[in-house]
């Protein structure tokens, strides 16, 4: 009985994997069909990344520290920000198309399939255009962190899982708000703008803003805490609190999503 359930679960994961492969393949084909646009987007992303990096390096010539962090540490914060920001962009780009599905009623077609509608929505447009820069950021990060201890690496891996949970939870919440209010675009862009506050450690903000970025929209937990763990600045209690908050946040996101589905009116379908 247990074996059969296990095999069923494996089979289920395989279906999701094949679904993602197919949908990602289609997205890749569409990117190739508009090659010029794709190249311009990729070059633009590189420019944006290097311009801010350049700005940080310019600071290095003039100042010693910013809120206690050296400019080299600020660069690591910026790299970690890019790493997790792009992870969300690569896998959950589909959220940007979700409003159209809601207002047109096409979301119905997602609901009737034997697959999680959330999975279908969020993974529908895997963004390969972020992949080149994503790889570069990993290389830069690995280089700048080449001499850290095993404990710090283990902490970073754990917080990477936490960051992914939180990014997923926020995208679920945006989708849920989309179902309830039909507003998605601005909600996700407000999250993106708040995320930009994580390009630098949240310690630079006032207590009120920092509290908001920790407990309301957990930008601090997604971007700042994982970077801090690389410098050995996060103790075990703080790590535990981060994991618990992420768990609560994820649970709340799923509750909100389930509630949102009861409010879906299938307008225009």
């Amino acid at each position, binding site marked *: 009985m247990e074996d059969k359930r296990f095999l069923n679960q494996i089979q289920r994961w395989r279906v999701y994997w094949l679904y993602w492969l197919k949908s990602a393949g289609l997205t890749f084909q569409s990117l190739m069909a508009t090659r010029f646009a794709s190249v*311009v987007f990729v070059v633009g992303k590189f*420019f944006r990344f290097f311009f801010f990096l350049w*700005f940080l390096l310019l*600071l290095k010539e003039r100042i010693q520290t910013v809120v206690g962090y050296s400019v080299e540490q600020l660069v690591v914060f910026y790299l970690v920000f890019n790493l997790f920001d792009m992870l969300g962009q690569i896998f959950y780009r589909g959220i940007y198309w979700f409003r159209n599905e809601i207002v047109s009623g096409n979301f119905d077609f997602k609901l009737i399939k034997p697959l999680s509608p959330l999975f279908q929505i969020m993974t529908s447009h895997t963004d390969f255009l972020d992949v080149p820069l994503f790889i570069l950021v990993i290389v830069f990060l690995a280089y700048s962190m080449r001499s850290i201890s095993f404990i710090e690496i283990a902490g970073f891996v754990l917080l990477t899982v936490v960051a992914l949970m939180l990014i997923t939870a926020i995208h679920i919440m945006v989708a849920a708000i989309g179902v309830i209010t039909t507003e998605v675009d*601005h*909600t996700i*862009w407000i999250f993106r703008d708040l995320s*930009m506050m994580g390009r630098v450690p949240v310690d630079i903000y006032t207590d009120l803003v920092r509290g908001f970025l920790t407990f309301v929209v957990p930008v601090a937990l997604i971007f700042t805490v994982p970077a801090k763990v690389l410098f050995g600045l996060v103790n075990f209690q703080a790590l535990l609190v981060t994991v618990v908050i992420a768990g609560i946040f994820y649970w709340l996101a799923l509750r909100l999503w389930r509630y949102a589905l009861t409010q879906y009116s299938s307008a225009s379908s």
Partner: protein
Amino acid sequence: MMLAKYWQVTKTSWENGFVYRLNFLMWRVRSVIRLLTVYFLWAAIFQRTDGFLSYDKAAMMTYILGTGVLATIVFSTRSIDVGTEIAEGDLSNYLLKPVNYFAYWFSRDLADKLLNILFVIGEIGLIIFFLRPPLIMPTASGLIAMFLLVSILALVLYFIFSFLVSAFTFWYPEHNGWPIRFFVFVLLEFLAGGLFPLDILPPVVFSLLRLLPPAYFMYYPLQVFLGRLSFWEGVGVVSGLIFWIFLLAIVLNLVWRRGIKVYEAYGR
């Protein structure tokens, strides 16, 4: 009579802004978040230092908050939709009407700018009230007049520049011209001086960037506002703006004429 129809367009666009209230409010929230991000970064930098190159804290905080106002005056635009109209063939609707397409969009832009200016005054007021940054305010009426003149010219220059970017859609209608627009946004974010004053860049880079149109969108108007330019340097900025406005207007005219020839009204 000629102006009356464009005044009507401005009025309609103004009213249109109040119809999509939530949309507009969300946009303003995003603008404030972006401004605060840069503000706090510079505030943190000035925690441990009295000056950064030739800027003291008051000058830098004024500059950064000033970019929030300038972004509203110069960059607020509805004409960003021109690319979509070209790509989707909606431009045909205007070609058949007795309206000047540029004047039509400029009228719409004016309404958008006025609405945004109204909000940004309140937002900056709240930021100053709550965060109490040290600020430099010009007192000389000549300086204020020069700042207003440079800002208005910068607004006109950006309008023409933005139209040129949209005109690219005649040849590359993919994604409604958004890729090029995205690329230009990325460049302007840094080259217009929104994140930092351009003169903190290495002298070689600055001496090149100071000559290009993006420097006139934010950097120069704020230099005037801060009183960092002499009278004749101010005159030089006005001359530079007029030069770029004429040059880009001529280029836009040529590009637009060629664009109309290749325009095929896809999707109609």
